[in-house]
């Protein structure tokens, strides 16, 4: 079973203060820490588990600059056999161009299964997997939360809403977009990453993929970013200030007055 996993390095924004940058079309990223996209972490784990059980190869692919190579090192440390980086140069590819580039790389690699995360934690479009599947002419399922391989088929469940899943059977080769929680990703130690530091990671430029200039150039983008802004405050919460003891007392008061509980 040969598996290709598409992964992305994303800024960690959970507890970060985000500012719109000078271009007005992105956030300032110089002070942000980058991590493997959470969904992709589950995808690479799933691929490595399959390899450990059934043999075969796992190749991690990313689209990114030199700094993004660390996400591939991490995948190698988790058990991927090889990694490929596509360097976009100065281009800022949208989801459509990203999918075209990644699909072009996947085409050059043996693949019974292509995995990617459901979405990326930055722009959460949840679109690249499906677009790649269309380009590769593979069956696709979005939001896969369990995966079992049979003879030339994959038995999967697809997460719907309200705790309901759909059961489906997909003919391989297939592209599956992996949901968080499908497994428990292994811990990656600094030692583990050190061990794979000297492993060579081929870098492909946009010209190396056999795509027509119109498919990858600046004008190939179908989505045009008009600008970023802070969202409206909504119905902003009344903020409770004070020491933890004061806060706790205020919470208990609210529970008594408003909730009729406690």
């Amino acid at each position, binding site marked *: 079973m040969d598996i290709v996993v598409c992964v992305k390095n994303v800024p960690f924004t959970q507890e970060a203060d985000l500012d719109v940058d000078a271009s007005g079309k992105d956030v300032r990223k110089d002070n942000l820490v980058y991590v493997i996209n959470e969904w992709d972490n589950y995808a690479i784990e799933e691929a490595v588990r399959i390899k450990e059980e059934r043999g075969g190869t796992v190749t991690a692919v990313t689209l990114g600059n030199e700094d993004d190579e660390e996400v591939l090192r991490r995948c190698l440390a988790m058990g991927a056999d090889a990694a490929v980086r596509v360097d976009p140069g100065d281009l800022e590819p949208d989801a459509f161009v990203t999918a075209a580039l990644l699909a072009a790389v996947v085409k050059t690699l043996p693949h019974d299964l292509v995995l990617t995360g459901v979405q990326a934690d930055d722009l959460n*479009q949840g679109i690249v997997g499906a677009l790649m599947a269309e380009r590769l002419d593979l069956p696709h*399922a979005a939001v896969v939360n369990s995966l079992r391989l049979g003879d030339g088929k994959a*038995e999967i469940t697809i997460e719907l809403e*309200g*705790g309901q899943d*759909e059961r489906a059977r997909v003919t391989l080769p297939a592209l599956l977009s992996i949901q968080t929680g499908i497994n428990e990703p292994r811990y990656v130690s600094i030692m583990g990453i050190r061990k794979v530091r000297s492993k060579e990671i081929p870098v492909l430029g946009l010209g190396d993929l056999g795509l027509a200039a119109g498919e990858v150039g600046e004008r190939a983008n179908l989505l045009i970013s008009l600008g970023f802004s802070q969202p409206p405050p909504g119905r902003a919460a009344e903020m409770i200030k004070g020491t933890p003891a004061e806060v706790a007392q205020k*919470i208990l008061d609210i529970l008594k007055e408003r909730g009729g509980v*406690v």
Partner: protein
Amino acid sequence: VARVFVVVEHRQGAIRDATFELVTLARELHTKFGLEPSALVIGSGVRRFAETLSAYLPETIMVEGEMLADFRYETYAAVLRDIIEKETPLLTLCPQSAFGMELIPRLSVELSRPCATDCVRVEMDGPRLVVVRSVYNGKINSSVSFASSGGYLATVRCGSYAPAAESGSVGTIREYRCPSFGTPFKTEFRGYREAASGAIDITQAQFILSVGRGIKDAEHIPKAEAVAAKLGAVLACSRPVVDKKWLGKERQVGTSGRTVKPKVYLALGISGAFQHLAGVKGSGVFIAVNRDPKAPIFRAADYGVVEDLFKVMDALTERLGS
């Protein structure tokens, strides 16, 4: 006249709520920008759905076929491709659900029409379609437009528009013939699986103490359990806690877990992803504790505390002890 189509999502004999939210959006695009709205109903035995939709929108296009009983990309895409190519709507809308996420992006490539996913707003700026998307954990809004095309597709985040009421008039129903499909299919629908119901039913709770990513580690769960017990609250959680297997799926609040309506919802260390917030809509008092002052949960809660959740839990324990 430019038109907007709403792809009706249904499952197991019922139209999904998200469809009626898209009806609201389609009507808004009619009122503000003159787009003519139609519903698209695809399925097997779905005439009653078409009749339902005709009470909401002036036109419903229906395609019935035995092969369309359950959603499958290959069949639904073939039907939609045919209709969109013939009717050339300016915009085709679908919910951002597993259904929409599978259908719309691929269809967009097949039809050479750009699509935007997970939009929270759809508007027009003159002749140009503009969507707003919520990015970077809900902390930034992104306005996006498209390369020029004869038509566009978009999926819309559930809960972005209020569900529509009936229009008071009856629309027309137009039928399209179901095409014949080349088999065999590469995907096979095998059935539905309901969430395993555990010993606890959080939907019945009057007071919920819910923990999120901020709880940091499985070893802190007993502490949260103890505080919940002291307060007389039922312990629940957000998705990351279930993903990490620290608590069972039956305790998950949100679109992929349970929808709850307690008198009090006390959220500790939950950032407030929209999927989570959608699961607590209609709760009584909503109190949120989070270290991040910019966490989206403070845009939804009644009361907010910017503080380390462990300090608040300790202080609550101390107060309740005396």
